[in-house]
């Protein structure tokens, strides 16, 4: 450790514990001094501090030592008394307030804890603490229990102007006016006197003064009298460069020229006088006094005998003195003398001597129970230990002891008083008791406060001592303990404690924060609001960034409130903002926060714009920008569809095959390169921005005037271009030859007054309940060309505060819906190149149902309207799902539905398939001559057919071109999106079975089930497509379905006969009409087709025409269904059946040959040639393997009738209907030949297959092959030629057409019975 004297505490002690000189002067003296703006003491004070005096001192020991530093404290006699408590308090308060004002202005907040610590220590610790502590210590001076404040000498000053100066000197030292300390016996009134004659040179010549001095010397002695001449300067213009009085007159105005009449000689004279006074008079006097006292003490107290005597004597007087303060000691008591000896030794720097005397006296005081004096001595011992730099432990122990004793002396005093009350007043009445108690309380309070204040001083010194030794934590504890009932002082102490925690290694920041908050709280209680704010603000960095939100809210809220009290509403608001979105607080607290906040905002008298308003919370990641460039949306639903979906839909429609960037590349010459990647929007068309707002609080809030903040500026490219064409476009040199698009230049900024005419911003108001979240759509419509930038959003909270939120804030999370796939900076996502207004088609499909039944067929009307001044042409349309929707002919627009679907005699059937190719490609070209003129609309018929049930999205894109409007954009697309819900209506399934031995006739079974929950259907008609087929009912419908309509859940089975047999697909078609709709049509033209390909299923007496299945919409939709075969097995109207004449397996065969043979069995062998026709009806290559086996026993499987109809592993075309499952067996029985089992079993004569026993062949898709077969018969009889097995394997063709049947399938088929009768023909031969 460094020299203790050079530590802050050491310096403080050397300044504060120094000899006191009592100054007595006449009014004339003061008057002369005041010419300089100074009092006498102020005038002399600068010269009382000797830092390099170098005086030899000899105290008790014989060895002299040299005193380097010395200081005198000058006081007027009137000030030598214990200061008035109230006055002292007032002064301290003033000090604090003053500091508060000063620091408040210059305080700057460190935002981070790290910053806080990185500053140098001296900067961190406010300097005013030292000053305050000193002031606080001074309030306790001139206590009777310690001697270092007792005047050592008396300086009597008389002016040469005074009458009879010698008498004045005598008058001055009049005992009546002397301080009470000297009068009440606490100190020796015989003190050293020094006489000074002050001569003001302005008052007259020096001669008179010298004569007076001679008189004085005669009267008071040669050495004790001196003269000072001053105010030598006549004009008072002397200006002291280094003003020595500045620190002694703190309240001096800066304009005041202190010491203006004092020239250098005067100053030197004063200086010399003070030095002489201290070195020649005061120090020798003190030395002498120490020696005398020491001798006395040695005589009475040192040595074994004296100690015993002392001990015995003290025991003896124990009971006699009984006051709270212990015994009263007068100046000539030995205890006081020892104390004086110690203090003098201390002041002269002889700490060893001081310590030994303190030790001596402390035991005495302890024995005497003079607690206050004991504490005072302990205190001094601690300080002496410190200055001796010995035994830290002892020093601390002494300080703690002193501190506790000061505090306990209060308690001890109270205790004794109470004891006395008890002793004397036990018999008195209770009223008396109360009276006494009151007096006691008053006494103890007074004592308590004095003791406390002493303890405070002791604590300050103790804490300083600990700080010097880097025991900052302990120092903080001491400061904390100092806190007493004086709130203001406590506040300062707590603040000092907090700094101790901050400076401790490692810093204890939590405690730092806590003590600051405590301190602030105390400051607030004393109305030191500025201090309170300062401390709370210092605490902010501690809590910043932590999740201790309760504390954080408390701090911010109070700072806000206090700033509001000071009228600094702006700052108040910023702090209140911090607590606004406190979700964790209770509802009442949130209400309080919000209410106070709004009140403060109101008081500011202006609408606040707050950048980081947390209420409501904006979910930036939810930001969605919807804009339209060449792609326009018919509805909001279309905008929410994924871009990739549209892109794939539009791929072959927009001009080039490399669709995406092509339109840009084409025009790269025109658009500056910089903007190639920025988004484009069209003037007059709204940009929509979806933002999510959330109320984090539990209380409702109202938000109004929510709008976007946008900047619209002229194209900077253009501006730069005009300035420096060459430089700007160096890399783009070729482009200059093409010139730039000319923009109407209008430089706009935020503050531009006519921004309203250029931008239209939507405003939204809403209110949010507690915890509610809402998505708001905001729009901005640029009116002129330029660069539009969406900067952020602003809103008004409770119509008082404007919140702003910049979108650049958290760019990572931003999502721009229409952003190009390329990665580019987020700022460009919100930047748009506004181009000139363009035509924009509005599209709408009339009466498109949202909910319908599967199979519903109806005409719709698409309406396209053009609101602009320019025509558009070259329209194309693409529909994502042609099974549901396709464009009709314009002439169909006003056709009567459903009558238009009916068969007409004169219609050429073959000519109605004009649209097939177009619809297959999904792309519909409107006729060349069709264009949408300006401000008109175009209607176009569409056919709608609910092909599949489920939730069906429909995407429609309409492409159109406009000419001569903009060179940037030549075409646009209109995107429409609808969602359909298709409910199940009828389930239709078919089963086709061959008629035995007639491969050209089939039995068709149709099962129809009404799957709706409530609807009722009427089945009208079954038609086969393809004119080769003739279909007829086996029994009249009336007998199956008398009610003629199919109610919900009802099922129907019908049987039909089909004739004719090209090997081709059979497509069956049933037209269904909702009864309600079909009842409107009445047409009486009978069907006269050659072949009956339609069957009426409705009422037979109905003479309605059949619906023409080969006419336009029906046939087209049918084609669609065909092309999407395999995708669905639940089609109602058009049920594709892939079927072969004999079974459901893709492979069918027919064994053909003679049925009856006559053979002469004289020749033993009868060979019969048969032909097997194998048909592959699938789209796959089939490899067929025919195995014949001769012995019926080798085939253990019973030849069941059902085998043929049992499905193999794979069965296509059959849609399962569980409801009719039970009837299935019956039907199969009905459909297959009823061969009596007995017959087949009985008549199994032996025959053998001749020729190959195994044949393998490969069949191409949809082809037929013939295989010769031969058997040998040995005896006449009836033979069942079913002893063979067909194995088939289907290998899909790899041309990708048959995705639905990609699986390899295989199956085994038993041969079916073929009966051959062989007769004996002997007779004929």
């Amino acid at each position, binding site marked *: 450790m460094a020299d203790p004297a050079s530590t802050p505490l050491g310096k403080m002690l050397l300044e504060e514990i120094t000899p006191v000189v009592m100054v007595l002067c006449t009014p004339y003296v003061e008057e002369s001094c005041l010419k300089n703006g100074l009092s006498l003491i102020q005038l002399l004070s600068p010269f009382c501090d000797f830092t390099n005096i170098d005086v030899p001192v000899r105290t008790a020991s014989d060895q002299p030592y040299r005193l380097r530093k010395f200081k005198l404290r000058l006081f007027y006699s009137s000030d030598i008394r214990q200061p008035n408590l109230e006055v002292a308090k007032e002064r301290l308060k003033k000090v604090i307030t003053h500091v508060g004002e000063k620091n408040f202005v210059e305080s700057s907040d460190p935002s981070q804890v790290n910053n806080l610590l990185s500053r140098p220590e001296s900067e961190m610790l406010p300097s005013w603490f030292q000053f305050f502590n000193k002031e606080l210590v001074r309030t306790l001076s001139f206590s009777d229990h310690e001697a270092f404040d007792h005047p050592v000498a008396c300086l009597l000053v008389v002016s040469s102007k005074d009458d009879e100066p010698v008498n004045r000197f005598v008058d001055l030292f009049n005992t009546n006016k002397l301080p009470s300390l000297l009068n009440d016996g606490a100190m020796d009134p015989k003190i050293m006197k020094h006489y000074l004659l002050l001569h003001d040179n302005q008052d007259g010549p020096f001669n008179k003064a010298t004569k007076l001095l001679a008189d004085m010397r005669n009267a008071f002695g040669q050495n004790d009298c001196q003269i000072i001449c001053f105010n030598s300067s006549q004009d008072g213009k002397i200006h002291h460069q280094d003003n020595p009085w500045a620190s002694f007159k703190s309240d001096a105005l800066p304009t005041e020229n202190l010491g203006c009449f004092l020239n250098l000689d005067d100053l030197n004279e004063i200086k010399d006088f003070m030095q002489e006074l201290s070195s020649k008079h005061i120090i020798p006097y003190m030395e002498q006094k120490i020696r005398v006292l020491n001798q006395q003490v040695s005589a009475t107290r040192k040595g074994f005998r004296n100690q015993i005597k002392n001990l015995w004597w003290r025991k003896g007087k124990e009971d006699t003195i009984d006051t709270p303060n212990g015994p009263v000691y007068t100046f000539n008591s030995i205890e006081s003398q020892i104390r004086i000896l110690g203090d003098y030794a201390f002041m002269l720097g002889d700490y060893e001597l001081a310590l030994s005397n303190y030790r001596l006296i402390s035991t005495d005081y302890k024995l005497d129970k003079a607690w206050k004096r004991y504490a005072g001595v302990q205190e001094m011992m601690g300080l002496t230990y410190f200055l001796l730099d010995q035994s830290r432990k002892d020093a601390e122990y002494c300080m703690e002891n002193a501190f506790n004793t000061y505090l306990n002396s209060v308690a001890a005093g109270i205790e004794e008083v109470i004891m006395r009350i008890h002793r004397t007043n036990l018999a008195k009445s209770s009223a008396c008791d109360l009276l006494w108690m009151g007096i006691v309380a008053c006494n103890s309070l007074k004592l308590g406060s004095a003791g406390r204040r002493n303890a405070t001083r002791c604590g300050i010194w103790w804490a300083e001592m600990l700080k010097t030794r880097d025991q900052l934590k302990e120092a903080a504890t001491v400061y*904390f303990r100092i806190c007493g009932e004086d709130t203001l002082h406590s506040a300062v102490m707590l603040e000092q404690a907090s700094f101790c925690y901050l400076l401790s290694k490692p810093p204890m920041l939590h405690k730092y924060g806590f003590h600051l908050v*405590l301190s602030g709280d*105390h400051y607030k209680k004393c109305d030191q609001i500025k201090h309170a704010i300062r401390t709370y603000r210092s605490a902010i960095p501690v809590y910043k960034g932590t999740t201790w939100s309760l504390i954080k809210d*408390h701090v911010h809220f109070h700072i806000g409130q206090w700033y509001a009290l000071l009228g600094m509403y702006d700052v108040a608001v910023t702090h209140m903002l911090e607590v606004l979105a406190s979700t964790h607080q209770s509802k009442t607290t949130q209400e309080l926060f919000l209410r106070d906040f709004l009140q403060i905002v109101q008081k500011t008298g202006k609408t606040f714009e707050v950048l980081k308003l947390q209420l409501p919370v904006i979910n930036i990641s939810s930001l969605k920008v919807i804009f339209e460039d060449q792609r326009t949306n018919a509805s909001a639903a279309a905008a929410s569809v994924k871009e990739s979906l549209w892109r794939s839909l539009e791929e072959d429609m927009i001009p080039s095959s490399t669709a995406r960037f092509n339109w840009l590349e084409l025009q790269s010459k025109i658009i500056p390169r910089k903007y190639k990647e920025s988004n484009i929007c069209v003037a007059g068309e709204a940009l929509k921005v979806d933002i999510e707002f959330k109320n984090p609080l539990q209380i409702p809030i109202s938000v109004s005037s929510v709008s976007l903040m946008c900047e619209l500026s002229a194209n900077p490219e253009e501006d730069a271009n005009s300035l420096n064409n060459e430089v700007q476009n160096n890399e783009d040199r070729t482009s200059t030859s093409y010139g730039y698009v000319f923009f109407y230049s209008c430089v706009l900024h935020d503050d531009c007054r006519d921004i309203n005419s250029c931008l239209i911003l939507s405003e939204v108001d809403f209110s949010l309940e507690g915890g509610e979240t809402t998505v708001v759509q905001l729009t901005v419509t640029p009116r002129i060309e330029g660069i539009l930038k969406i900067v952020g959003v602003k809103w008004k909270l409770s119509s008082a505060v404007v919140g702003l939120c910049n979108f650049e804030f958290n760019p990572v999370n931003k999502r721009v819906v229409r952003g190009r796939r390329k990665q580019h900076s987020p700022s460009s996502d919100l930047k748009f190149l506004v181009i000139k207004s363009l035509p924009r088609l509005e599209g709408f499909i009339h009466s498109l149902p949202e909910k319908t039944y599967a199979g519903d067929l109806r005409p719709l009307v698409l309406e396209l309207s053009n609101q602009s001044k320019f025509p558009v042409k070259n329209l194309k349309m693409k529909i994502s799902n042609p099974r549901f929707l396709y464009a009709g002919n314009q002439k169909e627009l006003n056709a009567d539905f459903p009558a238009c679907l009916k068969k007409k005699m004169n219609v050429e059937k073959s000519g109605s398939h004009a649209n097939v190719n177009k619809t297959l490609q999904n792309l519909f070209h409107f006729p060349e001559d069709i264009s949408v003129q300006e401000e008109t609309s175009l209607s176009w018929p569409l056919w709608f057919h609910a092909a599949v049930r489920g939730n069906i999205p429909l995407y429609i894109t309409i492409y159109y071109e406009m000419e001569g409007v903009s060179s940037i954009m030549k075409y646009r697309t209109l995107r429409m999106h609808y969602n359909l819900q298709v409910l199940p209506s009828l389930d239709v399934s078919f089963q086709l079975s061959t008629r035995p031995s007639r491969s050209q006739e089939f039995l068709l079974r149709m099962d129809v089930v009404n799957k709706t929950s409530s609807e009722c259907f009427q089945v009208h008609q079954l038609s086969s497509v393809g004119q080769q087929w003739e279909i007829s009912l086996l029994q009249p419908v009336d007998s199956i379905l008398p009610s003629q309509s199919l109610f919900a859940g009802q099922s129907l089975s019908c049987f039909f006969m089909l004739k004719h047999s090209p090997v081709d697909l059979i497509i069956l078609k049933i037209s269904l009409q909702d009864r309600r709709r079909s009842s409107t049509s009445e047409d009486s033209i009978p069907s006269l087709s050659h072949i009956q390909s339609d069957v009426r299923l409705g009422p037979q007496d109905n003479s309605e025409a059949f619906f023409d299945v080969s006419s336009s919409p029906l046939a087209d939709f049918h084609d669609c269904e065909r092309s999407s075969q395999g995708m669905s097995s639940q089609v109602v109207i058009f049920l594709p059946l892939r079927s072969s004449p004999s079974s459901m397996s893709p492979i069918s065969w027919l064994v053909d040959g003679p049925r009856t043979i006559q053979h002469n069995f004289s020749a033993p062998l009868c060979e019969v040639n048969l032909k097997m026709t194998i048909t592959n009806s699938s789209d796959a290559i089939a490899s067929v393997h025919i195995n014949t086996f001769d012995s019926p026993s080798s085939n253990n499987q019973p030849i069941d009738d059902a085998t043929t109809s049992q499905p193999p592993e794979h069965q296509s075309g059959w849609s399962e209907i569980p409801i009719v499952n039970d009837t299935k067996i019956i039907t199969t029985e009905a459909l297959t030949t009823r061969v009596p089992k007995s017959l087949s079993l009985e008549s199994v004569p032996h025959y053998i297959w001749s020729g190959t026993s195994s044949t393998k062949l490969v069949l191409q898709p949809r082809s037929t092959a013939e295989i010769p077969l031969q058997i040998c018969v040995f005896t006449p009889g009836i033979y069942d030629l079913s002893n063979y097995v067909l194995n088939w394997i289907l290998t899909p063709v790899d041309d990708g057409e048959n995705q639905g049947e990609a699986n390899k399938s295989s199956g085994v088929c038993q041969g079916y019975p073929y009966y051959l009768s062989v007769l004996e023909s002997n007779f004929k031969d």
Partner: protein
Amino acid sequence: MFLSEITAGAKIREEEMIVCVAVVGHQNNPLYIQSFTDADDALKLHHIVHCSLDVVDERVNNPKKSGPTLNETFLGLLYPTENYKVYGYLTNTKVKFILVTTDLDVRDGDVRNFFRRFHAAYVDAVSNPFHVPGKKITSRTFADRVSTIVQSFGLSSAV
């Protein structure tokens, strides 16, 4: 005001009991703070808990030299204020448990026992797959269990 009691040493002797328990994460973030007083002193208790973290840090950084204390989780008395005693406990994952009590002469064993049970409750709470580590503990079961433990504080040793 709320803070006056701390400094002025007001002699409001409540029933001697646990007034607050807290779980503080390894970044000194509060995970769970529950006070068991009727008074509106949440802020004060927050401050006390927050303050005691300094002492926890100090204890952790300057462990006593002797071996057995190396793995000791119980930190002992942290912070004697005039009205309260604050005890600390540190888990292996540097999660701190803080106990604030008005009971001025608590037996060490009681406190240790309390912390052991509290630790078990905490482990069960964070083992919940729906608990996000580092976030506040919101489990109602945990809260119920803690209040049970708090209520039975000091009783077990008396038996």
